[in-house]
Structure formats: structure tokens, C-alpha cells
């Protein structure tokens, strides 16, 4: 159809927004670029002049005490919260501050919530089906058929997250851990360029943790991954680059060892960390 028709069609997601053909420009290195971002909730600055850069394919861990602004930062990136000032760029082309959640999501930014949220009334299979990267306009969705490769893709993911057996069970009956898995699985279905993972191992057993670790490290490279986590052990096991947030701005950045040897960090964070790590 002609370009103008395309413009007038409200449901149309323009090609450059759909992840398959995602034209996120990463030639200049960073895939995510936050500069001087500030958010205040009635006076209280949750994020304060935050600067953060994530390179393409990087796996970055973000740590920090409660109220450091980790979750708020994710809200900003995914378009849930609008900052009072500052700029947030995805690649060097897309200004995230001018987009809403669905647009950002279809740019290829996937998010896993702190509290696992899956569609309990739907089966595991359907949860993945919905998450799958596809044309998400109304009519295509209405007429969508389950093609072979789609099924294979879903099976594959089911395999990775180890829920093949439960594929037709409503997600509501899954255990907490399984829900975490399912949600990560949903992220995988999205084929995102950037993955935001909020406390992926909260309430997981040891071996579950290990698999998560493998999984996330496995993702890195193909996708950029940002992990927010309290569990130091876990962080240490996966982290290459670590950023420490404190009172809404970056306190320190570097490898785990550098960071953990940084006195200010030790003071504000690791000191208070023990009981959280436990």
C-alpha cells in the first residue's frame, strides 16, 4: 500500500518499529544511552542525574540498596514513567521519551517484572504464543494461525525453560519458580535487542539459579541484558560489568572486584548487603 495509506492506518506499526526488521542503530557502540535523567515523585528525587550506557550485546548487572532507583530506572526505559529531565536513547536513532510502552516493546526492549506476572487464565503455551515477536496489529492478530515454525519456536523455548510437560496447563497453577521461568521464556519469544530483568532468581532454588545464570549469559552477545539483582552470589556468577546505584545516581561502575573494593560502595552498600544477600 502507498505510504500515505500507511500513515492513515491507525493500527499500522511501521516497519522500522517491528523487532524483526529492527533498525536499531548501534554503529556508535551503545544500545542504551541515558543522560542526566531525573525523576522526582512529589519532591523526592527517585532518580537523580543518572547517566548510564549499555553497549550492544553487553550483560550488565545493576545493584544497589532498596530505594536506589533500580526499578524506577526500568520504568523509565520501558516508558512506564516519564522523567522530569534528561534524555534516553535506544541506539542512536530512537528517543524513548517520545514513545509509549507498546512502541518501545516492539522496538525490541523486553522486560521481566520483579513480581512474576504471567497470564494465569491462559495456558503456558498461549502465554508464549502471545509473547512471540509477531505482527501485533488487530486484524493480523485476529486471523493469526499457528504456523509450523511458530510451533517449533515455542517448543524450543518450552524446552529451554523446561515447561514442555506443562504446556497446556493454565499458567495460574505454576509454582513461583516456574512462573519466573515462563516469564523469561516470554522474553525470549520477543527476540528483544535489550532485556531488562528484574530480580530473576528471587525465590529460586540453587540449581534453578544456575540454569538462569547459564541462560542469561547465553543470551548476552545476541542480546544486551540488564539484570537488577540483590543476590550477590548470583551477580558475581554472571557479572562482567557491574553498576552500583545509590540514591538515584551511579555510585560506581566496573568489574565485580573493582566495585566491591570501592570504599564508598562498601560503605553504602555491601555493608548493608549481608542480610539482603542471605
Amino acid at each position: 500500500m502507498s505510504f500515505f495509506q500507511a500513515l492513515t492506518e491507525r493500527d499500522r506499526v511501521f516497519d522500522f518499529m517491528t523487532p524483526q526488521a529492527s533498525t536499531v542503530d548501534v554503529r556508535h557502540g551503545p544500545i542504551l544511552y541515558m543522560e542526566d535523567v531525573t525523576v522526582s515523585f512529589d519532591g523526592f528525587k527517585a532518580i537523580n542525574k543518572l547517566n548510564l550506557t549499555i553497549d550492544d550485546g553487553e550483560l550488565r548487572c545493576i545493584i544497589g540498596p532498596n530505594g536506589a532507583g533500580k526499578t524506577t530506572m526500568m520504568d523509565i526505559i520501558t516508558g512506564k514513567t516519564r522523567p522530569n529531565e534528561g534524555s534516553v536513547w535506544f541506539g542512536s536513532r530512537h528517543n524513548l521519551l517520545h514513545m509509549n510502552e507498546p512502541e518501545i516493546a516492539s522496538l525490541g526492549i523486553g522486560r521481566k517484572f520483579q513480581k512474576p506476572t504471567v497470564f494465569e487464565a491462559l495456558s503456558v503455551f498461549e502465554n508464549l504464543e502471545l509473547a512471540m515477536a509477531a505482527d501485533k496489529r488487530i486484524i493480523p492478530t485476529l486471523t493469526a494461525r499457528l504456523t509450523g515454525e511458530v510451533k517449533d519456536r515455542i517448543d524450543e523455548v518450552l524446552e529451554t525453560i523446561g515447561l514442555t510437560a506443562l504446556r497446556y496447563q493454565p499458567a495460574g497453577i505454576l509454582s513461583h519458580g516456574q512462573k519466573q521461568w515462563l516469564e523469561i521464556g516470554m522474553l525470549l519469544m520477543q527476540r528483544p535487542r535489550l532485556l531488562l530483568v528484574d530480580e530473576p532468581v528471587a525465590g529460586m532454588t540453587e540449581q534453578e539459579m544456575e540454569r538462569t545464570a547459564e541462560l542469561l549469559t547465553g543470551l548476552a552477545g545476541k542480546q544486551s541484558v540488564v539484570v537488577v539483582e540483590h543476590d550477590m552470589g548470583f551477580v558475581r556468577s554472571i557479572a562482567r560489568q557491574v553498576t552500583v546505584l545509590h540514591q538515584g545516581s551511579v555510585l560506581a561502575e566496573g568489574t565485580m572486584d573493582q566495585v566491591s573494593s570501592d570504599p564508598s560502595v562498601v560503605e553504602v552498600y555491601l555493608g548493608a548487603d549481608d542480610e539482603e544477600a542471605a
Partner: protein
Amino acid sequence: MWLTRPFNERSTQIFLLILTVAVIAVTVLHLAVPAGHPLYVSGYTVGLLGKYLTYALLAVAVDLVWGYLGILSLGHGAFFAIGGYAMGMYLMRQIGDRGTYGDPILPDFMVFLNWDSLPWFWYGFDMAWFAFAMVLIAPGLLALVFGWLAFRSRVTGVYLSIITQAMTFALMLAFFRNEMGFGGNNGLTDFRELLGFDLRSGATRLGLFIASGVALALGYVVCRSIVGSKLGRVCVATRDAEARTRFLGYRVERFQLFVFVVSAMLAGVAGALYVPQVGIINPSEFDPIFSIEIVLWVALGGRASLYGAVIGAVLVNYAKTVFTGVMPDAWLFALGGLFVFVTVFLPQGVAGLLGHLKRRRDDEPSDSETPDKEATA
């Protein structure tokens, strides 16, 4: 094709089967059996059942938005009524110069209220195709505008329910005004013929009854194929976790809008079939109470299971027929009691019970929770 998908679902097959049998049975019993015979179905009963069928379609429409989208609309009576008015206006124009005053153009109420000419919005309603199109377009348009405003600004839950109520209430007041040109309190009545068939003949009424049956079947299939599709699952997802669905990249408000409009159109069709069967349309159909009653039908039958809505509509209205006949005073007690009972003790409704029994028999989830596998696979 997605529209054919429902025909593979067992629940739909059963539903369509029962409906067809019912309609045919009534037709046969009405025509073939001599009056007075115990099996004879009188024209009165046919009319009654026809009315129930239109209500059932209305209930299905409400269930689509409430059950699967989680939008409790307290204003669906409005779409029903508007569809009805569209049909009513067509029927008025059909009277032509057979009106009391013999005015070839103006309906009677306009003549004796001294309207000198037909208001613009009555134009075109003398043509069947236009009127029937309007049956879909008018309610759809209202739903589109209203829904667009509401969903865009993410008005949800109780707030949405209340403003839908405000909408239908405002419309009721508006249509009561005689200046509006819709006949005020008396509404539209004294219809003569529909597509050339005399509305006062038993045959036409039977035809309308069958038409209602067909409409219900079609409406059911459409809704089924929507909720059975991926889109239906997006709806359920939205109902349960709207924010999450957004993060998956779905433009939730547009899906809501789409389904809302479809539902409104179905309601319009129901209204259009209702009017010629009861012979009058007046603003009391806009009454918020009526809209709430519709929701009760669905609640009783069971949300998120379309056939439940049908069961609910028929049960409640049959009960109404009986009660207002036998003990008028008791009716409101019964209705009120039903509201309380269903919401407190029967949250899944009748369909919920059925599903429960079914599940107990063979351990597969009833399609009210997850769409059938044969649809998905």
C-alpha cells in the same frame, strides 16, 4: 479462515445443534400442530421466544466485553436501543401515507407536534439497506467515539462502568425530549410492514423468530471465533494483566476498542430484531436499570462462557414472564435475591457449574478457562 475455526469446537457444535433443533421444533409445532392440541405452540409463545432470543444475543454481546475483556459495561442497553431505533425509524417510514393523518413523509407524531419537515437524521431510513446498515453503524459509531475517549485515557474498572451508565442515562433523557424528533416518551410504534411483510401476520412473526435464531447463531459464531483467536487471548491477557500486555507490545486500548465496537454492533442487531417483534421502541430501553439487568443475565449464566450468557438471558426472562404473571409483587424480590445469590455464591454462574461437572467427569479444562486445543493446534 478464522471465522470457520469455531465449527471445530465441541461446545460451539453442541450449542448450534441445540439452537437449530429448538428453532425448528418451535416452527414445526407452531405450523403443523392444530391449535388447542397440547403440543401446539401459539403465536404468543413464538413471539415470546423470539424476544428471548434477541435478549440472548444482547447477553452474548455483553459477555464478550465483560467476560473476555473485563469491561463491565452498564450502558449496553444504549447500543441495543439505538439499533432498535434505527429499525424503528425504517418501520415508521414504511407506514408511508397509511398514518392517521395520511402524510406521505412525516410520521404521525411529527404531524400533530407540527413538524413542518423531516429532520435530517431521518433521511435515508425509507431505504431498507440504509436502515439496516445504520443498525450496525450507529451503535458502532457511538461505541467507537465513547470507547476511543475512554480507553485512550485508560479509564478502567469502576470508573468505566459508571461513565457507561452516565452515557445511557444521558441518552435516555435526550430521547425523552420531544424536540429530539424520536417521538419522545411514546417512542416509535404502530408499525405496519417490514420488507413488505405485514408485521401483524403470524407468519411474519414466525419469520422474525427464525431470523432471531439465525442472528443469535451468527453472533455466537462471530464472538466464538474472536475469543478463540489469538486476539481473544490478548483480550484475556488484557483483562488479567493490562500492563504486562502492553510490555509485550500490544496496543491494548485498540484491542479493547475493537472488541467494544463489535459488541456494540451485535447489541444493535439484537435491538433491531427486538423492535419489530414487540412492536414498539421508546426511551425506557435506555434505562440504566435495564443495562444492569443484562449484566445479571450474563452473571447468572456465567461470565466468559458465551453459551452461559444465552442460558442466563433465557432463564431470567422466562422467570420474569412467570413471576410478573403469577405474583407481580414477588418479582423484584426474586430478581434482587438472584443478584445477591449469583454474585456471592455462584461467581462462575450456571456455565461454571456445568464446566465444573464436565471437568469432574473427564479431567480437561472447560473452554471457559482455556480455548479448546483443537482450535489452537
